[in-house]
């Protein structure tokens, strides 16, 4: 299966994943009249404005009242609607975690939670808005599925999959533009990791915007004589344990990469599997127990060590630890 577009390192088109959400919603609105969209005074920011204009009877701006938004969405789901609830990552996870826990996860309500502003790439708004704990908060909930698309195209596929998927799902998107790297027609399946690059010496497991950095790292490593496999782990829960074990057995070393706290995030999830089932050396690229700061998204990716060169450094370290 060819997942990647051609020439992804040569001036790739850049689009925000939240824009993919906006486009997917409009298409969904047309083909599925059960789809309703809720947001909390951030219609344009979450890219729901196109849906709102076309389907005003199925769009609900609840005002700045996220707790009520989650409850109202649950009510819609009980009436056989398919609610997409969307706001900034900070306000659709931590702010309403108890509502999500009881009304959606415990009750297995068919509500789709879409976070549009997550991680340090939120940029200038700073720490309060740069949620770096949302994957942890969501993946710890029983019955919750957690998806982190790698780019615009994958976001559209994930949103379409979410409609057919019966149950709670959290989809983590970003504010900033990022390279479009996944081909439009490749298969996307919730819970199935994608092997983007074959390699023998190490496996880089990444999600979200770090997938592109991982691919760049694998290219740089190749020039250094290190053969790195790259897995796009777009679903953090349920985790594709089979793919992780298979790759760990074949390469014997793992580096994880995410725009999230290492604690509780992808790094934790992968190490939970490996430590119990097939321990191999592992290094983790991600946020190391700190909050964000203001800056441009580009500056912050570098500031927090979330670049391909950081992944390369971690690979060198982990390869040395191999027996």
């Amino acid at each position, binding site marked *: 299966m060819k997942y990647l577009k051609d020439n992804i390192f040569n001036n790739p088109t850049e689009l925000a994943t939240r824009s993919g959400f906006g486009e997917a919603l409009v298409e969904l609105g047309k083909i599925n009249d059960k789809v309703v969209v809720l947001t909390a005074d951030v219609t344009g920011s979450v890219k729901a404005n196109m849906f709102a204009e076309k389907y005003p*009877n*199925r769009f*609900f701006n*609840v*005002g700045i*009242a996220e*707790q*009520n938004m*989650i*409850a*109202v*969405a*649950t*009510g*819609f*789901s*009980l*009436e056989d*609607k398919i609610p997409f609830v969307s706001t900034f990552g900070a306000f659709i996870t931590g702010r309403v975690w*108890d*509502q999500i*826990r*009881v*009304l959606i996860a*415990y*009750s*297995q*309500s068919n509500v789709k939670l879409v976070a549009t502003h997550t991680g340090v790439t939120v940029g200038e708004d700073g720490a309060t808005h740069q949620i770096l704990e949302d994957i942890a908060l969501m993946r710890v909930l029983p019955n919750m599925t957690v998806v982190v698309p790698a780019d615009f195209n994958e976001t559209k596929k994930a949103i379409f999959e979410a409609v057919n998927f019966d149950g709670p799902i959290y989809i983590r998107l970003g504010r900033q533009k990022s390279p479009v790297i996944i081909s439009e027609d490749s298969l996307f399946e919730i819970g199935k990791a994608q092997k983007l690059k074959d390699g023998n010496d190490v496996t880089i497991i990444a999600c979200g915007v770090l997938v592109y950095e991982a691919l760049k790292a694998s290219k740089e490593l190749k020039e250094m004589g290190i053969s790195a496999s790259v897995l796009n782990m777009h679903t953090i829960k349920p985790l594709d344990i089979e793919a992780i074990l298979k790759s760990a057995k074949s390469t014997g070393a793992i580096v994880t990469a995410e725009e999230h706290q290492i604690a509780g995030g992808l790094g934790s999830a992968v190490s939970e599997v490996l430590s119990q089932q097939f321990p191999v050396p592992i290094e983790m690229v991600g946020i190391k127990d700190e909050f964000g700061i203001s800056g441009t998204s580009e500056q912050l990716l570098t500031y927090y060590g979330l670049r391909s060169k950081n992944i390369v450094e971690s690979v060198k370290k982990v390869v040395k630890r191999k027996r």
Partner: protein
Amino acid sequence: MHKIENKIKNIVEISKKIRIDVVKIIHNAKSGHIGGSLGLADIFTVLYFHTLNHDPNNPNWEKRDRFILSNGHVAPVYYSALAHAKYFPVSELLSLRKLNSRLQGHPNALDLPGVEISTGSLGQGLGVACGMALSAQKDRKTHRIYCSIGDGESQEGSIWESAMFAGHRELSNLIAFTDRNFIQIDGNTEDINKLEPLADKWRAFNWNVLSANGNDIQEIINTFEQAKLEKTKPTMILFYTKLGFPVSYMDGVSKWHGTAPNDEDVKIAIKEIEEYYSKIGLS
């Protein structure tokens, strides 16, 4: 205290059975919220045997009125009403709070027919009711959504998010009621975090506000009927109830919000319940 009229005798009889079951099952479980459950017994009996348009044989009937228990901790009275309405066998009530029971400490919608959504964390059910009401309003459906909240629960900010939302959206198909007994776990609501003037608060949020004695079955019936006439606003009924009604030792005593009665307490409670019903004309 006035004698009951014949036409509601059947409902009053059921309310007595529900009360006695509430006492017995909480005693058997050795934990649970008895005060609110007893105080709400008249309202829940009226709901399930008069007001709600529902079908226990078809809990998911599309045209049913929806009922959401936002104050999930009064599960015992909810379960008793559902069982007597034949959603599940009355004999199952004794499994309350036991391992592998469908009658969890707080209601679990996945397990139990008749329960729309799991509740127990306060301040959440009213918003769910708002979502159901808005969905029905948009689809021009004629069923109503009823929602029970506690007075202590009204200290949750999320209740007022939902209150503002329902008022703004003019959800006239939503009828909520508050169990106004003035008692929360740690004491009197007015000492802990004042709710009054409660009616004015709801009016200010664009609700139709009614009030009634929540321990008088005829008055409860009349008030729900009056609420159904409202055409533009959501309705909030402030039902003034007594904690543990009609058990005198529970009246106004916050300990009985969430404490199970011991053997001696149970004897007195059952005796007082029977005395109360004979006084109002039930043999």
